[in-house]
């Protein structure tokens, strides 16, 4: 019994309880990737600010910017799902409530990815 606090084998102590190592690495991977991406996003926001519809469309239509926006939003959605999941796992004890909140978090992250992907595709088609 892996959940028996006394009679755990040495082997079971060495393993993460579920799949902690993979999540830990994914958190660090997304964190490191987001440092340059978020700084680029701040530069992008500065470039777009005050340029109106035409300026914003011209910026977002550029292939490099489409890729950069897509990467930033995709990794951000992944990062925020993992971050909120940690908070929910820490504070919500009831499995039903926790599962429901995790589902909502996943739905929000997926919606961000879908909205970004759809919008970028439309802009790319129009360009």
């Amino acid at each position, binding site marked *: 019994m892996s959940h028996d*606090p006394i009679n755990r084998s040495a082997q079971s102590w060495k393993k993460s309880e579920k799949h902690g190592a993979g999540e830990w690495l994914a958190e660090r991977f997304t964190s*490191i990737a987001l440092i340059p991406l978020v700084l680029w996003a701040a530069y992008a926001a500065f470039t777009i*600010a005050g340029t109106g519809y035409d300026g*914003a469309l011209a910026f*977002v239509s550029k292939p490099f910017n489409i890729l950069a926006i897509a990467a930033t939003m995709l990794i951000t959605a992944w990062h925020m799902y993992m971050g909120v999941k940690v908070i929910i796992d820490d504070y919500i004890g009831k499995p039903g409530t926790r599962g429901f909140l995790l589902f909502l978090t996943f739905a929000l992250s997926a919606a961000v990815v879908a909205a970004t992907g759809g919008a970028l595709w439309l802009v790319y088609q129009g360009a």
Partner: protein
Amino acid sequence: MSEKTLAPRPLPPRPMSPHLQIWRFHFTMFSSIMHRITGSAAIGGVVLIAAWLVCLALGRDTYTLFTQYAASPLGLLVWFGLSLAGFVHLTGGLRHLIWDTGASFELKKANALTAWTFALGIVLTLAFWAVLFATGKVTL
């Protein structure tokens, strides 16, 4: 007969973390909570940026409607708050990545690193908005 009384007693239920009721306030605990709060607040920024992109894709009228709200004084206040949350979460993440390597984990160094990363997040936010206003890209 007496063996029964000598048998190890079962352990009490193990505590869950973190135990908010018994935690004495300290700086790195505050920064840990702030990292969660700023990260959660930044989600609002992510949703707004996605909404901005959708409005851009839908055409000039929708985009103009979005920027009317986004560039209003209240809209700018919201963007300012979200950028503050974003920058403080960014530098807080940097702090955690430094801690992940095992560096600056001593109490005094950890407190100093926390103060520096908070300061850097605030300075980045103020610099960002100072440049936006100074170049006339954003006006009140």
